[in-house]
């Protein structure tokens, strides 16, 4: 049974989604959820002009059919962003496979703002929204079960998309639109075509006892906490 949880701690909104998938469905399920979130948390590129005005580029979208799940999701038309997300999901899946656990793990997508600190302190990253996707990998015995799983996981992902949309449309806290000097504290401006809010993807693998064996923190964006 999958129970999705939503809570707020210190003005950071946290959403937890749970999915149970077969091994070969992990990639697509994670991509579907992460891309759906990023679709809503990406804007067009900002172009600042004189007099404190700026214009916003256009975000394109494209449908992605899953091969192992009866599901189609929409992602932002940005190959760069897609590569970054796919890389993160692939690492998560490898970690799941190599951990020797029962196939349980969690991948988190965290949106944060940077707060400049004076020297010698490094910039502070303040999360304002965290999406955690708990994954439970199941093993199936035969093709019939796999076929049923294709459809069931497709339905479940549909429910997750509805949950995500519901949270997004509560119109809770969003960072204020920044000035030109502060845009890199709010948005990831490294991509050529779109501009998502600053985010990081991390994952944890859980062993059979339910404890976190390794907290493998992988920062996949260029702006890190390094001094």
């Amino acid at each position, binding site marked *: 049974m999958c129970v999705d949880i939503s809570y707020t701690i210190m003005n950071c909104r946290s959403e937890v989604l749970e999915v149970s998938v077969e091994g070969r469905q992990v990639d697509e399920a994670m991509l579907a959820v992460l891309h*759906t979130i990023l*679709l*809503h948390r990406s*804007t*067009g*590129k900002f*172009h600042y*002009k004189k*007099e*404190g*005005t*700026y*214009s*916003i*580029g*256009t*975000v*394109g*979208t*494209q*449908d992605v*059919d899953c091969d192992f799940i*009866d599901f*189609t*999701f*929409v992602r*932002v*038309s*940005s190959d760069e962003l897609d590569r970054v997300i796919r890389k993160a999901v692939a690492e998560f899946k490898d970690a799941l496979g190599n951990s020797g656990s029962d196939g349980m793990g969690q991948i988190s997508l965290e949106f944060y703002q940077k707060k400049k600190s004076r020297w010698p302190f490094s910039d502070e990253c303040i999360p304002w929204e965290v999406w955690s996707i708990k994954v439970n990998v199941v093993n199936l015995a035969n093709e019939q079960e796999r076929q049923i799983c294709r459809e069931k996981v497709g339905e479940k992902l*549909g429910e997750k*998309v*509805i949950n*995500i*949309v*519901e949270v*997004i*449309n509560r*119109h809770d806290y969003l960072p*204020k*639109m*920044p*000035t*030109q000097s502060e845009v890199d504290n709010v948005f990831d401006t490294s991509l*050529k*075509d*779109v501009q998502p809010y600053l985010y990081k993807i991390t994952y944890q693998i859980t062993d059979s006892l339910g404890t976190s064996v390794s907290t493998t923190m992988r920062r996949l964006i260029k702006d890190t906490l390094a001094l």
Partner: protein
Amino acid sequence: MDSDLSPQDKKDLDKFIKFFALKTVQVIVQARLGEKISTCSSSSPTGSDWFNLAIKDIPEVTHEAKKALAGQLPGIGRSMCVEISLKTSEGDSMELETWCLEMNEKCDKDIKVSYTVYNRLSLLLKSLLAITRVTPAYKLSRKQGHDYVILYRIYFGDVQLTGLGEGFQTVRVGIVGTPIGTITLSCAYRTNLALMSSRQFERTGPIMGIIIDHFVERPFTNMAHMHPCSYRAPGEDEGGTYAGIEDSQEVCTTSFSTSPPSQLLGIICTCLQKCVCCFDLTEVAKYVSLPNQMVVPGKEGGVPQMPAQPTHGTAAEHGRIPSCPTGQSPQPAPPTSCSSKVKTVSPSDALETTFTRKVGAFVNKPTTQATTTSLDLPFAAFAPRAYDLQENDPMVHPPPSPAPSSPLQGSLHSNTSSHSGGQPQDDFVMVDFKPAFSKDDLLPMDLGTFYREFQNPPQLASLSIDVSAQSMAEDLDSLPEKLAIYEKNIDEFDAFVDTLQ
């Protein structure tokens, strides 16, 4: 309410709502075209991409949406709805979902129109993009083609959900508060997908095709509250304009300002007036890639049940009748509906399909006169004709002539043609149903008899071994040789097995 809003804000808000409604229709209809949608991101604003989203405008869809709106805007008590239906090749149709853009009275007077409302509407469109791929109609629309097509209808006024059947579900896409009310976008979708009979849909209105089909005749012309739409056939050019934007194009060049210290942001919208756009109708085919509508039997083997088909169902399906006359007077007071069929169909392709009813093998046929001509039975030459119990069979009525006016119409009505000889119109449907191995009243052969009779069929000659030619001893003698050959080629066999794994 409105008095608190500045004239510029009011003007902006009306424009946002108008274009949001148009883009909503585009997203929904394009999501039901049956193909994957892809648009490109652009780092530079183009000025025509409302809400900073690349959503193409199918001109005909925009045209129909504007016709439905008839110069009004969605507001309190005035909802804009997009109804998605499925129509089978047999003429049955079924409402699948209804998307509703509504406004309630809850106002958010403090919200910034020019920034917050605009961005939230953009977010809502993204949510719509995501949700349109999740409802059950999406999968159906991706598989549309030979057996059914997906149609749409836009109407303005009161929301009508009765056609969705019992137990329909509702999903809310999102809400956006504005100073004049809260915009809500939701979808009600059918959960019971059992196809209803066409009779129940004689009272429903015409529906618009997702793909352009300008030749579809309105099958339901006696609807008091529905109004036919005028169409332009492809190539027909009334001044060359079938513009998604009628006489003025409003281009939103959005600039946002960062204004410290209050961080107030405003939009400077530049509207370009009087830009007349000419669209070639054939351009719309770019958005269309569905196969032709072919009437093929939806079932394999046996004889599908054929309810009594109104002939207009067939004609509407293949659009051999020219389009509705143009220049019809606009619709009266709401609910205003605008229906159009949007599909390119090659009529010749549609007519080439011949539906041949086939009965299963071994089904005994009745008399030659009654059945072999009207029912087109295969293996008719092999059927025993010893009996003529036609008069005892209430289900068999010989047709006057087997030749239909068109292959399509004849095939679809091969069952009902037998009733055309003056049978009174009843509420029940006479179906000559002959599944394979069914009991046939005309011949005294039931399943048990058949089974006993054919329980021990003779062995096929090709499988029999001529015993005199080879003895057991000879077989045994040749075995070592054969084994030696197989052992020599064992690598080949292993390689073959590996390829199978």
